[in-house]
Each structure stands twice: as structure tokens, then as C-alpha cells.
């Protein structure tokens, strides 16, 4: 009887272990997709068929959208935390403005303070939108390059351009993220220096946004370069992934 009991326990544990292992394998495969579809094909070191390619592409797109949403949520959370800081600095500014006699000037300074912080929010949102769109375009470039590679074309230059563009986008994204976490405040000294005091935050925001803008433009140029390099592949738009495996011949567009 004891032998039967022990055998049953061992059997049960083996069954549980097998199921657990199968489950972990099922989840681990899609957890580490490549940076883009081209990377994914290179990583697998073999040509995918059309269905497999489209499925992988959808997976990578989903992952990209998920990361974009995560970044947006992260920035949103930071902004919510900054809101109290902006309010506190506004109160501080009002107290400092108490020594200014001209009511109109007081209102203008406060308005500029609001406008500067609002513009920072609007521009960082705009830059983030631009970067997301560039990322989507880069995914398309990567998809087309993968099709070209599957048809035996040399895509090494496109791959390099895609990597550079990806890095440029990531650098710009980090800059946008840091910029979104900034709060600008006016230090009021005297009524005579009010214009220059207020002008300082305008200039500070302008300089900061200019730096981020330069990075966003660099990312845009990098993606354009990748697109131009891709376009240099002869008849690249006519190339498709093979319908079945193994692929040996170039297939025309269906």
C-alpha cells in the first residue's frame, strides 16, 4: 500500500512539473521579441513564412504600443505629482508680487508663469506624439527591409540606419521625459527688474525646449535616412515574404 501511495505522489509531482514547464515555455517565447521585425528575423537566423511574419509583426507592434502607453502613463504620473509643486510656486510668486504696485503687471507676470508651464506641457506632449509616429514609421521601414532580406537583397545599410534611428528616438524620448518633469518659476526682485526677471523663465524654457526639439529633429532625420536607404533597394515594394517555407524563389506581390 505504501508503495502505491509513494508511486502516486511521484506521478502527481511529475505531472505537475511537466504542465508547469510547458506553461513557462508557452509564456517565455513571446516575452522577448526583437527590437523590430528585422532584428527578430536576424535573431531567429531563418526566413519566416508570410503568416509567421505577419503574426510576429503584430506582436512587435503591440509591444511597441504597450511601451508607448507606459511612457505616457509615467509622464502623466510625474505631472500629477508636479501639480502641487506648480501650485505652491504660484502662491510663492503671488507673495513676492505683493511688493509690486502695478496690478496690471502683477497679472501679466502671473499669466506668463502659467503660460510657460502650460507650454512646457503642450510641447512635451507634441514631441512625444512626433516620436511615436516616427517609431511607427520605423517599424514599417523595418518590415519592408525584412521582406527585402527574405528575398536575398542586401539590407545591411538599412539595418544600420534603423539602429541609428532607434537610438535617436530613444535619446529624444528620454529628453522629453526629463523635460516634462520640469517646473519653471519666476524670482521677482524689484519692480524695475520685473521684465528681466520674468524673461528669465521664458528664456530657460525656450533653451530647454530647443534642446529637446533638436533631438526630435535628429530622430526625424535618422528615420528619413533609413527610409531613403530602403528606397535605394531596387523594386523593394514588390518584394514579399514567401507564402510557405522554405523560400527559395522571389515571389511577386499577390
Amino acid at each position, binding site marked *: *500500500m505504501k508503495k*502505491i*501511495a509513494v508511486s*502516486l*505522489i511521484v*506521478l*502527481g*509531482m511529475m*505531472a*505537475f512539473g*511537466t*504542465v*508547469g514547464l*510547458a*506553461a513557462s515555455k*508557452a*509564456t517565455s517565447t*513571446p516575452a522577448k521579441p526583437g527590437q523590430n521585425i528585422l532584428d527578430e528575423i536576424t535573431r531567429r537566423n531563418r526566413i519566416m513564412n508570410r*503568416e*509567421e511574419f*505577419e*503574426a510576429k*509583426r*503584430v*506582436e512587435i507592434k*503591440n509591444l511597441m504600443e504597450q511601451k508607448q502607453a507606459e511612457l505616457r502613463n509615467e509622464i502623466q504620473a510625474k505631472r500629477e505629482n508636479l501639480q502641487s509643486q506648480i501650485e505652491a510656486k504660484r502662491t510663492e510668486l503671488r507673495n513676492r508680487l505683493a511688493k509690486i504696485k502695478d496690478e496690471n*503687471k502683477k497679472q*501679466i*507676470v502671473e*499669466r*506668463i508663469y502659467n*503660460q*510657460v508651464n502650460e*507650454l512646457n506641457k*503642450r*510641447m512635451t506632449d*507634441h*514631441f512625444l506624439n512626433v516620436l511615436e*509616429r516616427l517609431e511607427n*514609421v520605423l517599424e*514599417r*521601414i523595418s*518590415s*519592408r527591409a525584412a*521582406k527585402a532580406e527574405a528575398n536575398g537583397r542586401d539590407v545591411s545599410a538599412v539595418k544600420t540606419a534603423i539602429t541609428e534611428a532607434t537610438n535617436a528616438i530613444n535619446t529624444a524620448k528620454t529628453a522629453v521625459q526629463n523635460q516634462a518633469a520640469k517646473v519653471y518659476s519666476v524670482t521677482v526682485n524689484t519692480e524695475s527688474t520685473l*521684465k528681466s526677471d*520674468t524673461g528669465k523663465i*521664458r528664456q530657460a524654457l*525656450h533653451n530647454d*525646449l*530647443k534642446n529637446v*526639439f533638436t533631438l526630435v*529633429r535628429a530622430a*526625424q532625420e535618422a528615420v*528619413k535616412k533609413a*527610409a531613403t536607404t*530602403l*528606397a535605394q533597394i531596387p523594386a*523593394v*515594394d514588390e518584394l514579399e515574404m514567401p507564402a510557405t517555407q522554405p523560400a527559395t524563389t522571389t515571389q511577386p506581390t499577390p
Partner: protein
Amino acid sequence: MDQNIEPKIEQEQGNKKNIIVWVIVGVIVILILLGIWYWLAQKKVVTPVAPTAVPMPAPQAPAPTAQPSAPQVPAAPKEDSVSSINQELNSIDTGNLDQEFQAIDADLNSL
């Protein structure tokens, strides 16, 4: 008397063994069910990533090579075609920073 007690003890021991066996069998069944449940749960997580149709881009303007007189393009360019990529790239506007500062500058100049 002793002859009657001995079978009783044996019967009790037999019952205990039966209970133990049933408990073990029950535990194993629970473990197997847990394993299946875990596997199914993991499978559900993977399902959304399963192959689905690639979303087609919104109908876009014809490529420069398309016939200009045709009111509708018979087949829209693929979203990863060079013309479609360039079209999307050209439509991305990074904005004009100095223009965005116009309102602030106007207020600043009135100080």
C-alpha cells in the same frame, strides 16, 4: 473475547490505511487540477499576441505614380511601401518653437 478484539483492531488499521490513500489521491488530483488551471491561465495570456490580421492603413492619397484623373485608387499602397512611408514621414510636423512663444513674448513686452 481476545479473538473478537483482534479482528476489530485489524479492521480499524485497514480503515486508517484506506483514509490515507484517499487523502493522497485527493492531494494528487488537486495538484493536477492546479497544474491544468495554471497552464490554461498562462495560455490565455499568450492568446492576445496570437496572429491576427495586420491593420490596414487608412485610405491615403494616391502615390505620385498613380493616375491623376482616377477618382479612386484601385489598390491602396501597402503601409510598408516606400511611397506610404515617405507620405507619413512628410506629414510629421515637428512644429515651430518660436511661434509657440509668441503669446508669452507679447505679454513680456507689455511689462
